[in-house]
């Protein structure tokens, strides 16, 4: 089974090369992209099936053995993230193809879109599978380089303005990460995560704290943790809808994944747990207050994205098995739901011609399907039972109560307040955009462009994600099982280390 491990990275990269060659054949180009991402999804599912009950799978790239060579490691957490990310990227790809066909850009396709999208996928999967810090950095750079292209696609005035912020902030975080890598290498003489797990423990506490804070700083920017989150609500909303959706769903979660990985494997008893909890609280509260103040759906959703990163940090900061398990469950849920909401926002923009709440209205009557597509994931995000958002929050709250202590209780209270405020913010969108009587400026049955019927492919892709998000509730029992086993595996550390060095435990 180990030969499967590098495929999620290799296939999208090869696919990117092929789609670049096929830039004058849009139909073939789309077919190749869909095929590659479907194959990636299949491989990811196989990997998950293999690791769910067994040991982590590893591959030494190029045949160089573990500490010196590059290893790719697929453990339960990585495999689970691969499955979710592959499913989401596939749905968003179908959505963007539908959008492209509806807009009639067959004649002049943006040739670079498909290659960049596939490279983005390769970067994400590489980051999930990376077995050493430098490869993690390379994974980040691959996905960031592709994301720079995607966020500024078309190079309009507003995209250049927001793209500048995004690129400069991302570059800064990459430089901080690289500095941390240099210092860690200088201190321990290795970058292999499994080997670092043993060597970092031997370092003095103050040095450990320094290295840990540098890594947290770098990943915190990527994951949009308050106070390092200011770039996100400004840069995401201006990109085209599918790009915003996939960024919102995946890119910040890669940062969260990196935090989980380094916190559990490198600094299991690190002193920064309390800091993480405070950051989690501030991220939740500040993010959701920002969302309440917005009048544009995409900006509002970007703020809820920041806010809900706090939930994941909450679980990580608790550093208990239950907390980690809740955090992983929440990551899975949030990737699906946040992507769906941004896709739905893209449909709203198509139907209503704008995403500004001041000018929308009556969408529930004009486009009932759209109403369902927005309403279900919105309730899911706000954590209404029986949706997976509720279950994820319940798991985190339970872990917080179990942990005890003042800070944990404050966070439990903060989570509940954030959840209510999310419901308020989402309810406001629903009331203004869907429920009230249509605005005079709304295209009632068809303006030049905005009132066009919603393309079936776009609705279908969004619907698939809505079903996936709702389906998480159905499979929540086995999923919670899986996440708690992943959390146990992370906490034990030994399965990972043994798998990398090929020892039999």
């Amino acid at each position, binding site marked *: 089974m180990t030969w499967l491990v590098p495929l999620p990275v290799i296939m999208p990269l090869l696919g990117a090369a092929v789609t670049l060659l096929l830039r004058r054949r849009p139909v073939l180009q789309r077919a190749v992209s869909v095929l590659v991402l479907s194959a990636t999804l299949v491989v990811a599912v196989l990997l998950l099936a293999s690791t769910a009950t067994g040991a982590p799978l590893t591959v030494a790239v190029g045949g160089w053995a573990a500490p010196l060579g590059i290893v790719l490691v697929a453990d339960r957490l990585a495999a689970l993230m691969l499955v979710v990310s592959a499913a989401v990227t596939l749905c968003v790809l179908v959505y963007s193809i539908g959008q492209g066909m509806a807009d009639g850009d067959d004649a002049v396709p943006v040739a670079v879109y498909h290659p960049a999208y596939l490279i983005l996928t390769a970067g994400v999967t590489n980051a999930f599978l990376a077995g050493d810090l430098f490869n993690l950095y390379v994974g980040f*750079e691959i996905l960031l*380089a592709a994301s720079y292209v995607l966020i500024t696609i078309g190079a309009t005035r507003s995209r250049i303005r927001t793209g*500048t912020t995004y690129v*400069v902030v991302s570059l800064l975080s990459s430089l901080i990460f*690289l500095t941390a*890598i240099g210092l860690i*290498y*200088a201190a321990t003489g290795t970058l292999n995560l499994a080997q670092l797990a043993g060597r970092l423990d031997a370092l003095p506490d103050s040095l450990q704290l320094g290295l840990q804070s540098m890594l947290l700083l770098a990943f915190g920017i990527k994951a949009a943790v308050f106070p390092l989150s200011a770039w996100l609500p400004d840069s995401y909303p201006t990109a085209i809808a599918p790009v915003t959706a996939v960024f919102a769903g995946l890119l910040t979660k890669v940062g969260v994944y990196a935090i989980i990985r380094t916190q559990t494997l490198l600094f299991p008893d690190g002193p920064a747990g309390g800091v993480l909890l405070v950051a989690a609280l501030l991220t939740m509260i500040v993010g959701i207050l920002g969302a309440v103040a917005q009048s544009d759906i995409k900006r509002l959703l970007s703020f809820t994205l920041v806010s809900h990163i706090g939930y994941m940090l909450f679980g990580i900061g608790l550093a208990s098995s239950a907390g980690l398990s809740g955090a992983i469950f929440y990551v899975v849920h949030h990737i699906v739901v946040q992507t769906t909401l941004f896709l739905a926002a893209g449909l709203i923009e198509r139907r209503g011609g704008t995403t500004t709440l001041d000018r929308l209205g009556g969408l529930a009557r004009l486009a009932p399907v759209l109403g369902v597509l927005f309403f279900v994931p919105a309730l899911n995000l706000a954590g209404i039972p029986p949706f997976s958002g509720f279950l994820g929050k319940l798991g985190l709250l339970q872990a917080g109560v179990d942990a005890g202590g003042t800070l944990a209780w404050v966070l439990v209270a903060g989570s509940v307040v954030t959840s209510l405020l999310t419901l308020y913010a989402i309810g406001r969108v629903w009331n203004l955009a869907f429920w009230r009587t249509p605005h005079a400026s709304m295209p009632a049955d068809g303006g030049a462009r905005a009132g066009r019927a919603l393309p079936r492919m776009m609705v279908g892709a969004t619907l698939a994600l809505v079903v996936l998000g709702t389906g998480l509730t159905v499979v929540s029992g086995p999923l919670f099982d899986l996440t708690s086993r992943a959390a146990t595996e992370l906490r034990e550390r030994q399965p990972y280390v043994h798998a990398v060095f090929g020892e039999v435990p």
Partner: protein
Amino acid sequence: MSPNLVLVVVVGVLFAAGVTLLLERNLTRVILGITMLGNGVNLLILLGGAYGGPPIVGVTPEPKMGDPLTQAMILTAIVITLGMTAFLLAMAYRSWLLTGHDNVQDDVEDRRIMRRAERDEGLEDEDTADTADTPELSRDGGPR
């Protein structure tokens, strides 16, 4: 292995200059800052490895070999920084084509809050209120 003092000082200077330039409004200077920071980080990584002769078996005895891993990492980092710098330069050029300058601009929220603050001040002084508010009213109120 003892750290080379000259290299340490150079790393410090590059970091300081890079951060200073990064705080500028002008995108071209930001790019220069990122280049400097990138070079500083590369030297920092170099400092972390063992110092010595070329790490080729038969050329240098094993204890005197330099660390090839740091150099491999720096090579990768240089390539990445080069790509990013090229992209940023393209963005600066595009920004100059579109707006005639390459300054990094305030985000939407900042500008909205600034306008609101100006308007509040304007209420006390009606002359400025008229001139300051007219474009905004026509923009927001137009389609209603």
